[in-house]
């Protein structure tokens, strides 16, 4: 089942102060199905992260379409109303970055459980799931009730991933989530992504070390730097 069809998506940043337009990528086209894991690759500065942010709408695409089949109906992510994007973020589109945004006086366990509570799960059940997830990512149990503001980079990233992946999204955007992770956590991440794929979640990911998720990748999209061809192409997809 097709989940996302990107057609001619283009992003240019206008820097008004410099009266300049900085192109990020031009006319990208590709498709993503439910349960498919597509790796976004390309050299530094090709616009891999920018692509994910355009789909999550932290960046506003300049032109092109990103037709997304949500559970609520089909919509163009490039032009959808802010209210619709906010709704999709709450319910079915997840974005995982390298950074956790901890909040004062909110423990690691509560932070991870929060998306489930907001989705209507009981507090006890949500906390139990959160504990299982933190355990899988290898965060020491004595830290579960501590505030992540004081955690190390690696520990924060475990909390971040546990929180971001606890809810089964429909579309998942991963922006280098394995940076600063130890081996246990990388394995746990791969396991969780495998589970989500089996549930039909479509995943688009940027990985600095693709070998971390090598087994899971179904297809790739290569973004070429703009100076050359400007065109995205898809090498042959692996047989499913």
């Amino acid at each position, binding site marked *: 089942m097709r989940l996302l069809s990107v057609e001619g998506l283009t992003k240019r940043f206008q820097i*008004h102060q410099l009266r300049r337009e900085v192109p990020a990528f031009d006319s990208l086209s590709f498709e993503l199905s439910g349960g498919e894991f597509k790796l976004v690759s390309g050299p530094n500065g090709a616009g891999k992260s920018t692509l994910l942010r355009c789909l999550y709408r932290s960046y506003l695409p300049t032109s092109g379409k990103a037709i997304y089949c949500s559970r609520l109906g089909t919509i163009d992510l490039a032009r959808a109303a802010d209210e619709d*994007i906010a709704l999709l973020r709450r319910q079915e589109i997840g974005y995982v970055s390298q950074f956790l945004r901890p909040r004062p006086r909110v423990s690691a366990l509560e932070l991870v459980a929060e998306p489930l509570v907001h989705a209507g799960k009981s507090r006890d059940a949500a906390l139990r799931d959160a504990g299982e997830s933190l355990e899988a990512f290898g965060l020491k149990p004595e830290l579960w009730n501590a505030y992540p503001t004081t955690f190390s980079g690696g520990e924060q990233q475990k909390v971040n991933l546990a929180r971001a992946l606890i809810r089964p999204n429909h579309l998942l955007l991963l922006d280098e989530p394995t940076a600063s992770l130890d081996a246990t956590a990388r394995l746990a991440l791969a396991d969780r992504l495998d589970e989500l794929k089996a549930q039909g979640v479509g995943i688009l990911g940027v990985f600095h070390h693709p070998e971390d998720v090598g087994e899971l990748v179904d297809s790739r999209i290569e973004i070429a730097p703009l100076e050359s061809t400007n065109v995205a192409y898809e090498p042959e997809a692996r047989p499913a």
Partner: protein
Amino acid sequence: MTAAPRLDAPRLLKAQPVLSTVGLRKTYGKVVALEDVSLHAYRGEVLGIVGESGSGKSTVLRLLNLQESPDGGEYFLDLPERNRQNLFVLNRFETRQVRVHHIGIVYQNPHLGLRMKNTSSGNVAERLILAGERTFATLRGSARDSLSASEFPVARMDDPPFKLSGGMQQRVQLAKAIALRPTLLLLDEPTTGLDVSVQALVLDTLKRLQYELGITLIIVSHDLGVIRTLADRVMVMRGGRVVEAGLTDQILEDPQHPYTQQLVHAKL
């Protein structure tokens, strides 16, 4: 320079906005303070308004609080008894009813919102008295509940605000504002002037209350950090007009309008 591409109208979201204004206009003598300001917000949503001094953001808040009348425009709140009625045409009595029951406000300056020499509990109870509550035990019980929901130490509920720290005074204002579970909560620079750690705690309380009570919140601030922490969507104002509006992360990370770019970069 090409204009930012326009977005579609909402299609997936079926809810109607709790609050909407159409074409607000306000002048003070020859000065045009607001021109053509239209905004909307949904239940449980936090809308931020940013802009420099004189941009008109506080004027918007005063109009939404029904403190002043505009020179033009309409204002609707989704209230059972005021269905599709422009709130700017209500008489004084009706206006007061709407303000007491459905709109709460927290000011930057606690002197504007509190009687500094009365007790804190008395300040909160005042709202309930205006709504017709007369029983002492009920007044005190409700005041205590609101203060504790705002994470005010109830052991100090009879201290007057002038004896309290800035952070505590804001919690009293907040308790008073939410005492009647309003539909709309307006915040005018609620944490400006507090030190950073206290500010973080007050913001945390606000976020929790807003989620638990499902209140629609409009926050005016020049502090983009505060806006990032609280707001779902942001409206950028300059010279009495809205120059840009969007999702908070988009406005802060990919601002489209030259003025917003200047504002965001000045704060980094």
